[in-house]
């Protein structure tokens, strides 16, 4: 806030001159998630992988075991389809919201 560099900022069709906060500038940008994208919901490590790229899976099939918060969490397929990419390795430590695996419906 020290250097008064006012920027244009629109609220309901009107443009105001104002400063931005660091938190506003760093706010998360929203992207529409694909139904077959499998994200981690907790920080942890991948304990084992149960599928490979190219495998055909049904909704509810076990994809991998994600060890997090002292629990072995079963991660299952959100949709039926083909596993098109796996972006984690066994033993890899990952954060929350990490894209682990992609499934495309046939």
């Amino acid at each position, binding site marked *: *806030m020290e250097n008064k560099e*006012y920027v244009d*900022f*629109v*609220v*309901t*069709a*009107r*443009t*105001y*001159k*104002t*400063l*931005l*906060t*660091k*938190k*506003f500038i760093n*706010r*998360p*940008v*929203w992207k529409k998630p694909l139904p077959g994208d499998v994200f981690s919901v907790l*920080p*942890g*490590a991948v304990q084992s992988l149960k599928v490979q790229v190219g495998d055909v899976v049904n909704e509810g099939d076990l994809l991998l075991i994600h060890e*997090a918060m002292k629990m072995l969490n079963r991660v299952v397929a959100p949709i039926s389809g083909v596993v098109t990419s796996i972006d984690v390795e066994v033993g890899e*430590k*990952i*954060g929350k919201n990490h894209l682990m695996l992609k499934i495309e419906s046939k």
Partner: protein
Amino acid sequence: MTSLRQNIIDLREKKAIVEMGGGEAAINKQAAMGKLTARERIINLLDENSFHEYDLFVEHDGRDFGMEKKVLHGDGVITGTGTIFGAPICIYAQDFTVAGGSLGLKHARKITKIMDHALKMKCPIIGINDSGGARIQEGVGALAGYGEIFYRNTIASGVIPQISLILGPCAGGAVYSPALTDFVFVVENISKMFITGPNVIKTVLGEDISMEDLGGARVHAEITGNAHFYAQSELECFDQIKRLVSLIPWNNAQKAAKIESREPLDPTHIEHIVPHDPKQPYDVREVIKCITDGSEFLEVHELWAANIVIGFGRMGGETVGFVANQAMVLAGVLDCDSSDKAARFIRFCDAFNVPIVTLEDMPGYLPGVDQEHAGVIRHGAKVLYAYSEATVPKITVILRKAYGGGYIAMNSRHLGADFMFAWPGAEIAVMGPEGAANTIFRKEIMEAEDQDAMRQEKVREYIEKFANPYVAASKGFIDSVIEPKETRSLLLHALQLSALKEEIRPTKKHGIPPF
């Protein structure tokens, strides 16, 4: 045979030993970290020679892991009473030189005893946190201690002011005592506050982050909002606390001490602060300083959610809480953080008999997916709840813009404001003129040959009709349209008139405010 004289000498010797806390080496280590000792902190914070210590000779009763052989002076915490500008204060300070200020059951019981005392005597409690965490050797006893502290923080909430200083590490469960209190103070390079520290994050995620970047003073003052006051040094922090204590009452049955009224330094400046063009920024704190006694203003949460300004000043010698939209930051919109910030402050003022003056100039709520998904609805609802619930005198001055839901939220007549004033340049409307014209005259604009010209014309039309205070005034939603220079005298009048205000609410156990 012992004489009284000998007894006194023995007492002095015993005290001198225990008062050394963890001993010279540990004290030197504390100094090397740039920190004062617990005892120095208490002495510097309280009025001279006013500190009276309790429970100096309390000892722990740990029996495991070699604890039975360890002497921990005062069990790592100093407790007692004193005064700040004559106000009675109960205080405790964790002593990092004694076993890292670790919290065992007896340590906690010293704290809960002084908290109980504060609640019974109805005086403010100040806690100085500087502790490595639970004393693991004591196991669940330490956890019991934390729980007993949290319980008292909650019971005392809204009865006595509770102030927390983070002057060292405060991690894991320990953070929840400060979080339950009214005001949290942090100091650059000294305060470290987090639930899980850098080591755990490194183990689980492999991410490297320093304590300072994770939970340092600046982070809590600017990003999380966990801290209300930020200082560069411990002594500056103590000055902030002294100012705060002088501005708030000792308990919820009193008003803050009244002092002699003083004029603002430059009262006529108020006409030159707010630009006529509603799109241009300015610093609303300048307006506040044109109406408070001596132009003094103690800002709370200065760095966090700066799009709203909250804090204490005096008017006519009495403490007033100010809530003001800050056009200079994010155009003064309400968002999740600024709603939380304002709502909690309003509830503090209401609990402790501090009248609330709201200075309004806001365009609406912050647009964005992140805001909607972060729950701006339930966060924004807190402001409505807090204003509606408050029974202290509530006065609003509309400086410039009052659009839509924001107009309702910022202590409107409809939420029970006692006095509604508006400056002549105020625009009270359902939304900004551009948005309104686009909606109402959508068809005309679409069908016009020159759409921009038509839009401009319709915006002008809307501004002429609604962008003023007179439509709201004609319905009695505004009591009077005032000149800026009349603001202080009218606020003083309103405060005087509402000094004995009484508002009865239906009996209930408690409301259920949105969280």
